[in-house]
């Protein structure tokens, strides 16, 4: 985990490098920087998934000395990274199907074990659809058997590769092309959906964590922690999608940060089913600030708008804050 940071400049979310210890500092991209997902891929401008995957896979590569193999589910990440004969992947990588990345990871891990190659480690990765819906059976099986695979879910909260349809990770009230903002209850229905990090925790696997692309050091640290362990590990990364969310490409990081600072997306770590750490909210922000930046929620704010839905989403954020103790004791909920 990051050492706690003292923010001398109040009212800003950015931390000047000089306020950080050297290992926590961000550095400009350099040619020497490791790059498991090379440039030239076809992701949209501002794609959170491309950013999240690159930092996560890079960190995993660094943690295991480059001795890493990846299994990838069908989805944006797979499609934009391998427009063959070009491929962005600088590590052995296999795409099999949409719903089987976790099982393919299990197979690779089993093969490595038989071959006595315990130095080589395995990650499996996919989008929220490939993870929470169609790939859930294989994922739960991999968890339950405690197979030696780190599964990375890049959650952009919908089926983006097929043109933005609802998944079980789509937030309530969000517009997708299968939850249109029409009728008395526009957008994705309340009362549905699943929280995969909690389900992963219920398997009591060695490590479960959530992260966002707003805090890449935190993401890297969690990957590193995950790679220091064996068995089934799960990392759920919130990756805003400008195209699917109807957001400005320049707002990807800001949105990820707002998701955390509103309490909408709790950032935490858990071991064997128990929460061990949470990222505290620095300055609590009403969900409206987060929602307004995204066209998928525009119907909540038009005329007449849906203030009751905004309130319901706020209540969900508040519940997260309470449940995971996302605020320091000094701040009242």
């Amino acid at each position, binding site marked *: 985990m990051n050492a706690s940071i003292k923010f001398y400049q109040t009212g800003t979310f950015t931390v000047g490098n000089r306020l950080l210890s050297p290992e926590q500092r961000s550095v400009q991209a350099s040619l020497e920087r490791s790059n498991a997902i090379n440039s030239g891929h076809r992701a949209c401008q501002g794609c959170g998934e491309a950013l999240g995957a690159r930092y996560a896979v890079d960190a995993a590569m660094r943690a295991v000395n480059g001795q890493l193999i990846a299994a990838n589910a069908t989805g944006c990440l*797979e499609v934009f990274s391998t427009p*063959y004969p070009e491929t962005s992947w*600088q590590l052995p990588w296999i795409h099999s199907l949409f719903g089987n990345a976790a099982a393919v990871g299990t197979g*690779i891990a*089993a093969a490595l074990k038989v071959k006595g190659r315990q130095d080589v480690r395995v990650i499996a990765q996919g989008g929220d659809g490939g993870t929470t819906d169609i790939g859930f059976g294989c994922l739960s099986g991999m968890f339950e058997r405690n197979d030696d695979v780190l599964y990375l879910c890049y959650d952009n909260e919908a089926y983006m590769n097929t043109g933005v349809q609802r998944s079980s990770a789509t937030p309530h009230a969000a517009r997708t092309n299968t939850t249109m903002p029409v009728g008395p209850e526009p957008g994705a229905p309340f009362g549905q959906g699943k929280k995969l990090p909690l389900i992963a925790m219920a398997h009591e696997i060695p490590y479960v964590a959530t992260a966002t692309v707003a805090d890449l050091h935190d993401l890297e640290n969690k990957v590193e922690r995950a790679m220091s362990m064996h068995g089934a590990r799960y990392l759920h990364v919130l990756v805003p999608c400008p195209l699917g969310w109807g957001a400005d490409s320049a707002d990807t990081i800001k949105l990820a940060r707002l998701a955390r600072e509103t309490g909408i997306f709790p950032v935490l770590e858990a071991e064997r089913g128990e929460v061990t750490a949470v990222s505290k909210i620095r300055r609590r922000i009403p969900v409206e600030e987060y929602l307004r930046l995204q066209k998928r929620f525009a119907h909540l704010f038009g005329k007449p708008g849906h203030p009751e839905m905004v309130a319901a989403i706020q209540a969900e954020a508040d519940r997260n804050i309470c449940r995971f103790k996302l605020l320091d004791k000094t701040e009242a909920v």
Partner: protein
Amino acid sequence: MRKQIEGSRAVAEAVALARPEVICAYPISPQTHIVEGLGELVKSGKIAPCEFVNVESEFAAMSVAIGASAAGARAYTATASQGLLFMAEAVYNASGLGLPIVMTLANRAIGAPINIWNDHSDSMSQRDCGWIQLFAAHNQEALDLHIQAFKLAEELSMPVMVCMDGFILTHAVEGIDMPTQDEVDAFLPPYEPRQVLDPAEPVSIGAMVGPEAFMEVRYLAHAKQTVALERIPEIAAEFCDRFGRNTGGLVRSYHCDDAETIVVALGSVIGTLRETVEELRRDGMKIGVLGISSFRPFPLAAVREVLQGAKRVVVLEKSFSVGLGGVVSTDVRLALEGAPVRGYTVVAGLGGRAITRASLASTLRDAVDEKLEPLTFMDLDWRIVNRQLEREAASRRSGPIAENLLRDVGSVASKVS
């Protein structure tokens, strides 16, 4: 060594002799005894090093096999029926990726209505999946085919399905010659993958392919099966040299040289057919049997060579294409293109319906007397079929078909006198 063992156990021991490195198991009758046997062999250390993965579905079984094979391990799984359908997407993927997985298919009917007994609907449902499909006529052949299958699969880098009739073979106890480990090691070299996930030489496997090359990739899969058409008999011959048993190959004919009528079939029914044919020959009928051992690739030339001299060909099928008729028949007719041979399809043994010598003999006599319909469902109980048709004509809400028929048949217990 000669052993009296169950077919499933024989297959488990044969697979063990092939030194599999990753075995994925998900239970379904009539495959269960095979994976149970393998589980025990792995756990007791008789197969080592080997990972035995109890997966949560057949889809995962094939997916784990895909990952293992792509990472350079010799991978094996087994399934049947619903299980094969459940893994279908991964079955196509394994062949598309060119991964030499070996899978036993304990042939069983597909529901609904759910039925655990033998027929070939499962194999035929994946006819076009790009796997090599070999059919065993008896348990010794099932055992031998598994050892040949690993060699074939790995040489060509394509997966092989060994099909054996559920229950009829899997659960039958027969005398079996079990090869020794040294013999199998000498026949089957260690797996040398064509492509492997290896950090020392990173490759991307499974990229999207567009119109610019997709046809060519598919053609190459077909071309490989054409090579398999040559390698299958060669491997069978090498196997015969080393193990002294003539099993496998493309086709197997009995009394076909002078036959005017030839029955074509796959799997264990060939044994019953051979006996039937002997009986009919004693009555002076010029009749023979052609067993197809390699269903995919389909040996068009070998089939034609045997059949073209006959007057009529009866394809006996344990599956059918609803709305058309025979599945294997279509392939056989393609082999006979232009030859003046009459073709009949006899659908028999669906869902475990017994195929008796008496019924076969009378059906084949009908064929010889030119009294057989082009498409015949052998031993169909017309009584219950017609009653259901009447019911449907009489009332819109005639109810679920299978349950109606079962009521007409009456409880099985009532028939036990």
